[in-house]
């Protein structure tokens, strides 16, 4: 099975509300996590990352929370806008040296309702 998974495959929110997308990971050795946004017909785009020595990191309208105790990652989007509609992936970085690679979760489709 996949080492990175998402709790909800789809999420619908009203425009202006906050969105929370969750992700569970299984490998306690993972030390780096990234959230990507993929709009329809495009490649994944980096949103925000966090290292395992941090619990929280904030960007512009986005916050990533990391709970290593329960191996859980979340992405919070403040004041969700129509342009936020996309598939969101969490990814964990495993391995060492040149063999480090990203393992992606299955994605959550976020739909922003008018």
């Amino acid at each position, binding site marked *: 099975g996949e080492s990175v998974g998402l709790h909800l495959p789809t999420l619908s929110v009203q425009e202006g509300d906050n969105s929370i997308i969750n992700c569970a990971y299984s490998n306690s050795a993972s030390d*780096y996590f*990234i959230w*990507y946004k*993929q709009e329809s*017909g*495009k*490649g*994944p*785009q*980096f949103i925000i*990352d966090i290292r395992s020595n941090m619990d929280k990191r904030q960007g512009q309208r986005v916050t990533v929370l990391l709970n290593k105790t329960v191996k859980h990652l979340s992405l919070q989007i403040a004041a969700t806008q129509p342009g936020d509609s996309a*598939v969101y*992936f969490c990814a964990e*970085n495993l*391995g060492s*040296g*040149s*063999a*480090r*690679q*990203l*393992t*992606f979760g*299955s*994605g959550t*489709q976020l739909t922003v309702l008018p």
Partner: protein
Amino acid sequence: DTAVSQTPKYLVTQMGNDKSIKCEQNLGHDTMYWYKQDSKKFLKIMFSYNNKELIINETVPNRFSPKSPDKAHLNLHINSLELGDSAVYFCASSQYSGAEQYFGPGTRLTVT
């Protein structure tokens, strides 16, 4: 200025054919990757190259052969295409293995 580019964007071909997808990055990155995204949006790494050297080769049929003529290019050649090869293929690059990856726009391959 496109950071990671792929050609073609769409590729429709018949079973048994051989096709190539090209990827170029102008970011000066050392590491490049190929991913396959299936119809359920699941992204799986296929290969990674670091300075033209193959680093990661996941369980991929040997009909798939990556080639890196230089650090800025990583092409994917597929022999004897099968229906199950239909997917979107993404190229990506990063400054080094484990760093943030930048993705290309994808190549939608349809095998009929």
